């Protein structure tokens, strides 16, 4: 790996992370708020109460601001694929092509068409058609997210494809395996439900501000009720989908799970760390205690990861050293290879690809067949061949560990928060103390933080891989001048920060104005 330009890899990764994180500032609110608006408009449709219409239109305006500022920010990621990640882009082209093309069509036809009816059609189409359009915008936004998340899930767990050594591309051989892989299903449900929770927090937080200011009281109270119910259901669902996601991580990406838990030495009946502080400078093969401090629940990690309290959970050292028993995707018991062995097999695969190419150029059909077989036999470890040191397969443990634990902690905080709000509404007749109203506003940035941390766990925890086990970042990156990547990194930083400032300014102005026609 020392042969590769790490500065180029790191800048390319930093740039992609920056773009993706900014993109994710805009997306989750769109996913959740579109649904909340659809529920509010349904109430207007059912009751004919004009106040529900005003409430719907107000939140729709904020949705529109977020949608407009965020739209097309994801396209930058596709630019980066072509320039900074050309090897990767070519390598996965056929797998990404189908989902991204469907996403483009979905986004364009469903969102763009019905969003116009949603905003322009209030007095021009029937109430029913308007309501259907609002629901279709919500559905379209969520379906758009499905395809990009399917593509991301494939990078975590490549399935439903064959590698073609003639083209150097992975070719989809089973669309349904790609779409319905357990990782894709869990990723979609977990990621979209995190957007629902954020939207719930957003609506409650802004409504709380109105209550603090004594303005638009009815709008605020009704919005808090809808958003708290929606937020509570979503946050409980988020916990379940989070469990599903973590279970898939345990099965498919054990190193990521070990990093999430700071687990260096595996054990049967492994505990789950509730709160912990990692020992600074801890190496995978030293004898230092991994935690300075921890509160743990016995056996829970084994149970959550393998559905058995006594199951063995491999730690970082076990995964590097190998020689432990695990159950593979087909349910067969296997002994894990060491990282060294995987590196060796990866090198065989890479050499087989090179030799296959040479044999093809020399019309040597026997050589082609031999190397093809060698490549197929070792392809699952292809990416390891680029690594020189077994330690390279360890992701950044502190970043993954703390991101994971803060995210989970916030998830449970959100459940408690929504329960508290609903209890106060139900038992206390909406008498919410001012400190809780202020806390409600603080919940909005915490919702954004939790979403970003989730992506850090997913992406940093997968390192060094771009595609799990098959392609590390060092091989995926284009061999271009790293200074070019640095320039565009700062360019993006300026552009996206400007967009964010623009969104916040317009959003704050609109919130201060409140609903156009007053509200009660």
């Amino acid at each position, binding site marked *: 790996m020392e042969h590769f330009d790490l500065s180029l890899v790191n800048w390319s990764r930093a740039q992609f992370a920056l773009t993706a994180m900014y993109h994710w500032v805009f997306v989750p609110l769109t996913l959740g708020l579109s649904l909340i608006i659809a529920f509010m408009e349904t109430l207007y449709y059912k009751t004919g109460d004009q106040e529900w219409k005003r409430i719907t239109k107000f939140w729709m305006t904020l949705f529109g601001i977020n949608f407009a500022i965020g739209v097309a920010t994801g396209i930058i990621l596709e630019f980066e694929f072509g320039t900074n990640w*050309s090897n990767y882009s070519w390598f996965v082209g056929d797998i990404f092509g189908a989902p991204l093309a469907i996403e483009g069509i979905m986004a364009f036809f469903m969102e763009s068409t019905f969003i116009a009816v949603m905003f322009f059609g209030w007095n021009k189409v029937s109430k029913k058609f308007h309501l259907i359009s609002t629901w279709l915008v919500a559905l379209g936004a969520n379906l758009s997210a499905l395809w990009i998340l399917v593509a991301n899930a494939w990078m975590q767990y490549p399935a439903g494809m064959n590698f073609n050594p003639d083209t150097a591309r992975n070719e989809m051989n089973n669309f349904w395996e790609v779409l319905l892989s357990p990782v894709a299903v869990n990723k979609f449900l977990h990621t979209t439900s995190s957007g629902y929770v954020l939207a719930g927090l957003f609506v409650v937080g802004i409504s709380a501000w109105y209550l603090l200011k004594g303005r638009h009281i009815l709008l605020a109270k009704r919005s808090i009720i809808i958003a708290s119910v929606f937020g509570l259901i979503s946050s409980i669902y988020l916990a379940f989908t989070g469990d599903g996601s973590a279970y898939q991580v345990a099965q498919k990406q054990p190193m990521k799970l070990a990093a999430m838990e700071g687990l260096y030495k595996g054990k049967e009946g492994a505990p789950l760390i509730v709160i912990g502080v990692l020992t600074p400078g801890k190496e995978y093969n030293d004898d230092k205690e991994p935690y300075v401090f921890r509160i743990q629940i016995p056996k829970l990690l084994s149970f959550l990861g393998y559905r058995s309290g006594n199951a063995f959970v491999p730690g970082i050292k076990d995964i590097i050293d190998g020689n432990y028993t695990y159950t593979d995707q087909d349910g067969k018991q296997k002994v894990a290879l060491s990282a060294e062995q995987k590196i060796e097999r990866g090198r065989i695969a890479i050499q087989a690809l090179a030799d296959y190419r040479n044999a093809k150029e020399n019309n040597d059909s026997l050589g082609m067949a031999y190397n093809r077989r060698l490549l197929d036999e070792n392809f699952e470890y292809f990416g390891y061949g680029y690594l020189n040191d077994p330690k390279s397969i360890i992701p950044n443990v502190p970043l993954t560990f703390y991101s994971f634990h803060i995210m989970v902690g916030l998830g449970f905080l959100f459940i408690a928060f929504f329960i508290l709000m609903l209890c106060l509404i139900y038992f206390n007749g909406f008498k919410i103390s001012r400190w809780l109203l202020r806390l409600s506003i603080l919940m909005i940035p915490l919702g954004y933080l939790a979403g970003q941390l989730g992506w850090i766990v997913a992406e940093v925890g997968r390192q060094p891989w771009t595609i799990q086990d098959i392609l590390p970042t060092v091989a995926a990156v284009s061999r271009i001048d790293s200074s070019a990547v640095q320039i565009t990194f700062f360019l993006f930083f300026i552009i996206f920060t400007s967009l964010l400032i623009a969104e916040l300014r317009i959003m704050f102005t609109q919130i201060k104005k409140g609903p156009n026609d007053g509200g009660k």
Partner: protein
Amino acid sequence: MNTLKRVFRFYYDGFRSMTVGKTLWVIILVKLFVMFAILKVFFFPNILKQNFRTDEERSKYVIEQLTTKPK
């Protein structure tokens, strides 16, 4: 034709009656211009499309990239 006219009027009236939306459209258009006319053209060429004419050449290049260590 009548339907097309009605669709056109629908969008035309909708855009005309926008308030905060006009600012947003300016932001969207400036953003798309910066993305496609500046960033895409000057900073983000598709390396494989730009440097090679056929898929055969592209796959050969990528295989070379994947099977040889950088100099």
